[in-house]
């Protein structure tokens, strides 16, 4: 079991998971999000390889259209 802080809220997962697995599980569209892990941006090309581990902090900003 791991516990991760996501947008200020604690959440638990059964095991470490990749950023892309996390985004898919939460229903995010990967082309519309910016993800920061422990304060550093995660490049989109690293979503598969970047693992979310116990006690990591994630900020996920999902954009909507309009401007």
């Amino acid at each position, binding site marked *: 079991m791991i516990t991760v802080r996501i947008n200020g809220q604690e959440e638990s997962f059964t095991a470490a998971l990749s950023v892309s697995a996390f985004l898919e599980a939460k229903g995010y569209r990967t*082309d*519309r*999000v*910016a993800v*920061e892990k422990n*304060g550093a*941006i995660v*490049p*989109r090309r690293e979503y598969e390889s970047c693992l979310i581990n116990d006690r990591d902090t994630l*900020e996920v*900003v*999902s*954009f*909507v*259209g*309009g*401007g």
Partner: protein
Amino acid sequence: MGDIRITEEEMRQALNGRHTEGVQSRISAARVAVAGLGGLGSNIAVSLARIGVGRLHLIDFDRVDVTNLNRQQYFADQVGMYKTEALRENLLRINPWLELRTDCLRVTEENAAALLRDDMYICEAFDDAGNKAMLVREVLEKLPGTYLVAASGMAGYGDGNAIHTRRVSSRFYLCGDETTEAAAGRGLMAPRVALCAAHQANMVLRLILGER
């Protein structure tokens, strides 16, 4: 454009008088990029031009369309012009001594970092959600030392007070209600888009003046 009956020195003194000299010297020395010159970007640029931001970098590939006039800072006689040129014209009517750089091109993953490398403050002002996210990822990954003020959610005529500014992380601020997407029957309208643009312009000003 009518005759200009004021001098650069008079403009400088007027800005100093309104803002105080210490504040104005920081505003005048700032370099700000505005990526996207639609409802958000044109309004951000007008605010920053009025307070005398030293160097504005204006970026858009598109031309003024009649459907832009409900919220964007262009005029009916500018329909068909490139937005970079139309906005240049309008900003120079506000302050003829502004230093402007314009790039009439589409911002992509490939050119974003090179395009923005001289700008300390960057406003994301695109329309498309994918482009917004792309610019945020590129700036935060490749341009350390910059500050980014982005926007998400300002369509329709919902509660004005739902538009807010929040600090996502040390160099990244987000304005908008974060939920209201432009859609059929919920279009982009001048008041709420301008509110969001004003949040962005004010956040840039706060950063220029050392507020975090």
